[in-house]
């Protein structure tokens, strides 16, 4: 074969390969955000508090919650000896709407099952995000670390087609070109009208910045869109304001102003404005936001510059210009956040335990454990952190958060109850 013919044949072969890749790589338009179902009218004010987790021995943290058809709920969190321990598991419990009780905990994922499925040694797990998609598939996203600390994380995905009874094996999402490290998940996904999933994620290796990960309805990565850059912001919580607009509230991890940051998208998540500080303070802690029927936002956060001793509910408009306190789901009795004397702690924390639906028969063991976790020679402190919001298909708001490192607390309330909380118009 002459040299020219050979070259032509090779060029044709290469062109065929590139053409095949071209046809298989159609651009992914971001569909509009899925519309929210309207809340039922005229429900009387209602609020209920429970502990979603039941184990007394383990450290628990970073919970998420989703509504299921029929009014049930499922919550997921990580639990183990301590954050980052090798024994940390992703656990879940189911809330039965008819009995009003949370089930016993079960393990959804462990280090060894994740390791076998994703083909890498796994050091630790964390940050589960559970969410029911509009097609009634239940998704669980969680973080695993193979190397180093949380900066070395990758996101794994599991899906259930029977509302959580059985689950697929975890599959690791490839989202970074650098050893696939440093993508983490924390806040609720947002769904698009075509069934695709917008998962707020963040990077914390050399920089700290949030991103919007776009997944197909089958969980394949379609795109990744930067929300910020630099070293200052992470853990975005995204609320769709209408079909194309969304706002992302960001945890601030810098040293300059200790405020929540906000970024907007006008094109269904493809591009985002430069994050700007808004009024509320942020002590470098996770926050959660959810949309309300009138287009405003409900936000749960530690509105402090330092510490996580108070969790506050805020209402704000879509422009984030007018923040109004709606109440404190949980707080320390000391308004400056200072430790309280050890002899005052048992009465205070026991009352909070009972008010949250804690089981009387477990109170003694609870007191022993919580004192060990929260007290030192200087006194005893309180921690209410890592809130996560969802609004179920009946319009009820569900807030879960870490309660003194001991339990995942669940608050359920409706729009009528919120309306009573407004201090003034």
């Amino acid at each position: 074969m002459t040299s020219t013919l050979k070259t032509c044949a090779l060029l044709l072969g290469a062109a065929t390969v590139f053409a095949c890749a071209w046809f298989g790589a159609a651009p992914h338009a971001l569909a509009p955000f899925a519309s929210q179902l309207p809340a039922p009218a005229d429900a009387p004010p209602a609020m209920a508090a429970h502990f979603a987790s039941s184990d007394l021995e383990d450290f628990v943290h970073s919970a998420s919650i989703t509504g299921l058809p029929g009014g049930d709920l499922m919550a997921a969190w990580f639990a183990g000896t301590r954050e980052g321990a090798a024994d940390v598991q992703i656990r879940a419990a189911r809330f039965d709407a008819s009995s009003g009780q949370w089930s016993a905990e079960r393990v959804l994922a462990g280090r060894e099952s994740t390791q076998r499925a994703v083909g890498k040694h796994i050091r630790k797990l964390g940050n589960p995000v559970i969410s029911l998609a509009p097609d009634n598939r239940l998704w669980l996203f969680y973080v695993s670390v193979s190397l180093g600390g949380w900066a070395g994380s990758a996101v794994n995905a599991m899906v259930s087609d029977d509302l959580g009874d059985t689950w697929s094996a975890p599959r690791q999402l490839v989202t970074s070109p650098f050893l696939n490290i440093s993508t983490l998940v924390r806040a609720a996904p947002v769904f698009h009208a075509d069934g695709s999933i917008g998962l707020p994620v963040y990077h914390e290796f050399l920089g700290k910045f949030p991103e919007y990960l776009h997944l197909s309805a089958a969980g394949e990565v379609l795109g990744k869109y930067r929300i910020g850059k630099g070293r200052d912001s992470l853990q975005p919580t995204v609320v769709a304001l209408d079909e194309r607009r969304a706002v992302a509230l960001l945890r601030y991890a810098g040293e300059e102003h200790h405020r929540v940051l906000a970024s907007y998208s006008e094109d269904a998540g493809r591009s985002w404005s430069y994050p700007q500080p808004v009024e509320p303070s942020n002590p470098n802690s996770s926050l959660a936001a959810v949309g309300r029927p009138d287009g405003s936002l409900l936000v749960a956060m530690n509105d402090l510059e330092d510490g996580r001793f108070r969790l506050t509910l805020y209402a704000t408009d879509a422009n984030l210009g007018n923040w109004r306190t709606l109440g404190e789901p949980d707080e320390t009795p000391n308004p400056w956040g200072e430790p309280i004397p050890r002899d005052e702690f048992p009465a205070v924390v026991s009352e909070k335990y009972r008010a949250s639906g804690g089981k009387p028969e477990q109170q003694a063991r609870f007191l022993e454990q919580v004192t060990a976790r929260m007290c030192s020679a200087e006194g005893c402190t309180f921690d209410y952190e890592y809130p996560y919001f969802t609004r179920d298909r009946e319009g009820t708001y569900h807030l879960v958060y870490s309660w003194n490192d001991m339990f995942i607390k669940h608050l359920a309330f409706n729009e009528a109850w919120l309306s009573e909380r407004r201090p003034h118009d």
Partner: protein
Amino acid sequence: MTDFWLPHLAFALLVFLILTRLTRNTTQRGILLAGCLLLSLLPVQGISLALQLRTYIGDLSVASLVLIGWATLSRFGIPPAGAHDRLASLALFAGLAVLLYPAALGLSYADPYQLGFEPRPMLLVLGLLCAVLIVQRSWLGALALVLATLAFALRLGASENYWDYLIDPYLALYSLGALLLAGGRWLLIRLSTRTRKLA
């Protein structure tokens, strides 16, 4: 399981290239290669040895696999890539690395990694570059591009991003380092030639 055959192949080829100097003939090299493949499957703490290595080094790109595959085949008699071919390939991958990594690690707002999820512009540019490499008879670079693109089209790896088939941090470091060395050597030769002329 198709997600994991590439890491096993990468392990086997890497270990082979490290140990091949211990062999004296083609038969011994054949046995060594087979041994490396078997070694890759050895279970350690619940996963294979190859996957343990994968934990620490991540996934190699298909382009990397082509380069180490060619180096492996050259131990069995296939002629190694010529200097010109090698230089063209290194320049290509160094360029891709510089485009990708600084921005992907957060140094700018723009994220070129996102282009890999909608890679038609990349396919156009790299397709043309591949054609140039073929015309210039730079077979190593052309083969790396074609096989990486084929693997991406067939989604043979775990990633849905074209970049992950084209480049990885090791190929980036290797190509940048080798290019710098080559550049340094060229500069030295030029300087010494000029000095001799002046003398």
